[in-house]
Structures are given as C-alpha cells and as structure tokens.
C-alpha cells in the first residue's frame, strides 16, 4: 500500500516536472485587455487540487480575503475581497486567469490582492522567496479550474 502511494506520487512529480518545463514564464505571460487566453502550461487544471491550494495558508490562502460558500468545512473566511460565489458566471476563463496571474495589471493597480504569477514583488522580499512567484504555473491552472466550477446560474 505504502509502495503504491510512493509510486503514484513519483508519477505525479514527473508530470508536474513536465508541465513546468513547458510553462510560460511569469515575464512572458501574454495579457491583453485583462485577458490571458492561453493556458500557462497546456495541461488541464485539476479543480480538486485547486480547491486545496485556495485553502492552504502557504499557497493561495484565498480564504484569508474571500468568502467561498463551496468550502463550508473551513472556518474563518475573510471579507477583504468580494465573495467568490458564482465567480465563473461573472468572468470568463481568460479573465479569471488574468486576475490570478496579476490582479494589479488585470483589475486594479492598487489592489491588496497578491499577484500570484508575477515577479513584480514588493521591496525587501525575504530571501527564501526572492525571484519566486507565489504559485507555480500549474497551480494557477488548478485554481482556475476550480474557480470555473463556481457557478450559481
């Protein structure tokens, strides 16, 4: 059983590795009119993984600022940003990808929301995070795939 898990995660790591090799770098993302039309990796996002990334305080931590009724098992949803319920009804996939990649370029240059796939960072970035984006390219696609499931209509 344990072996199986190890084998499975090795395969997973392999696919992530492949995806990364082909990923569009943060400085090369094509954003036009607040839309990023092309997938960053060419690999379809995994909504379940995206949901976990949203919850994870070290990754998306989206719940710090957004209410999301689809994740009721987590206490403490923040109210700094708008609720994400039905967000896929309001925005297209390309628009949501742009918001995730760099909300400051896509929506609001003054936004408090972090730009998750951008190297335009603040001053004095802690050494550990220097030159790194908050999320990897595939993680952005995963979160995006999850956001696309948030429909009310």
């Amino acid at each position, binding site marked *: 059983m344990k072996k199986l898990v190890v084998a499975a995660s090795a395969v997973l790591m392999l696919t992530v590795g492949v995806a990364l090799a082909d990923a569009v770098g943060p400085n090369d993302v094509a954003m036009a009119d607040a839309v990023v039309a092309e997938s960053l990796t060419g690999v379809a996002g995994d909504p379940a993984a995206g949901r976990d990334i949203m919850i994870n305080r070290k990754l998306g931590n989206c719940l710090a600022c957004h209410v999301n009724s689809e994740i009721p098992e987590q206490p*403490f949803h923040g*109210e700094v940003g708008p609720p994400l319920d039905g967000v896929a009804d309001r925005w297209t996939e390309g628009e949501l990808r742009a918001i995730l990649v760099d909300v400051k370029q896509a929506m609001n240059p003054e936004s*408090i929301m*972090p730009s998750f796939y951008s190297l335009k960072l*603040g001053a*004095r*970035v802690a050494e550990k995070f220097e030159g790194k984006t908050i999320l990897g390219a595939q993680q952005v696609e995963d979160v995006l795939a999850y956001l696309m499931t948030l429909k009310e209509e």
Partner: protein
Amino acid sequence: MIKVGGIFAAVGIAAMLASLVSPALADPDNNQLIIEGELIVTDVAAPDSSPLDHIYSGWRFRSPETQSLQMDDFENPGFVAVDAAAETWETADGSEGKSCASCHEDVSSLAGLRAELPKWDEATNKPATMENLINRCRTDRMGAEAWGWEQKEMVNMTALISLQSRGMPVNIQTDGPMAEWMEKGKDLYYTRVGQLNMSCSNCHEDNYGNQIRSDHLSQGQINGFPVYRLKWAGLGSIHRRFKGCMENIRATPFKRGSDEFIALEAYVASRGAGLAVETPSVRN
C-alpha cells in the same frame, strides 16, 4: 500581585477561542474599556490631517473574551511582568551599585513619558524610544550592561513605566526635528514590501474592521504596547509586532531598534494621537 490562576485562565480561554468558529465581525464594536472604575478612551475623532476617518484602539477589534482580560488587572496576564519589573526597579545592578529607585525614587515619577515617545533626543540627535532611554541609564549611569531589545527585563520594565501613563492621551511631537523622521516613517508605512507585495496601509488603513481569515483587522495602533499576546504567551515590544507583520507578507523585516523601526514607531504613534495609553494591553 497577579495570581498564577490568571495565566492559566488566559491560556484556557485562548484554547477555547481557537476552537470556536467566530461569525464575521465588521467594524470596531461599541464596548467601553473600564479598568478599576476608570474609563479608558478607545476612540477619538481624527484631525483633518489624518488619513483615518476615526481613530480606534486595537482593543475595540478584539473578541469580548480577550477584551475582558484587559478590564481587570488581576485577570490581565501582563501584570506578571509588571510585578517582576517592580522588583527589578528596586534592585541594584552594575558597578555603581545603584537601582533605578536610587535616582528616580517611585516609578510614578515617570508618568506621562510613554505618551510622548519616541521623542527628540539632543544627546544622540535622533528620536529616543523607551528602550533607548532605559539603556542609557543602565550603561551611563549604573555601569550595568545594556539590556537586549526583547530581553525579558527590558520588555517588563517598559511595561511598568508605560503603565504609569495609563489613561493619558498619546501626544507625540511631529514638528521641528521630528518632522523628518515622521516623513521617513510615513514612507515606510506606505511602501509595499515582501513577496505578497503589501504595505501597512493596505491592511491597517484600507481594511480595518474587516476579517482577514480568523483575524479582525485593527488600525495597527501602538497605544497598548508592550502588549501581552496570547499567541506569544508573553509580552512583546512594538518592534516585535512590526517584525511579525513584515514576516507575514514574506518581507525581510528591519532590525529591532533600527532607525527604520524607530521612524515607523514615531509615525504610527502620531496616527494614534489622542488615544489613551493602555499598557499592558491584551491581544490575541
């Protein structure tokens, strides 16, 4: 003076709170801080020059359970430190064989000081914090070793001295030689830092009153420092809190006692002018 039971009670409440799902709060509450029968002002009108529409103490954003710990000096876990410092105050140290009391007599002689800090200091040609002033007495007047910024004796002593000003309005000089430091502190306050790329103002000016995950954002005022934080299970300095906030947004913090943090302390103090000193305050 404080009972050990007070600490245990506080820890118990912290654990209880952690397991509770709190409903989303918005805006500061309307509770009144009354300690030993005395009303402590926790909000004041903001002057026209203020970027805030109204000025609130951090106490107003805490849960009723945390608030109540600060309303009774016997429950307030910060008083353990105050009591320890009262002993240090009387204890001789250093080559001169003197205690603080040898020269200052009763600590109440330092009432009012907390409300004015940091203040311009001719001797060093820069603003002095309470830590700076205490260490000058230790090294130059007692022949004792300087205390570290976050060393227990230092934090405890700043709590004891600040308590003498409890209830007095924060009133810090912003003009004259302080003006340049205010500008520097203001720059730092509005500069986006860290991988998360945020400034102090993003959270404490634009979003106070909002929940950020489990935390109810306050204006980040410093009128209650040093504070007893349940999370720290102890007292901490102003610069320790600044450091924590910078680390949370994945920035390299400035050093405690650095010119940058002194400038930031002075500027943040000015944003809370008129609030009452609340030391030792209790926060989660």
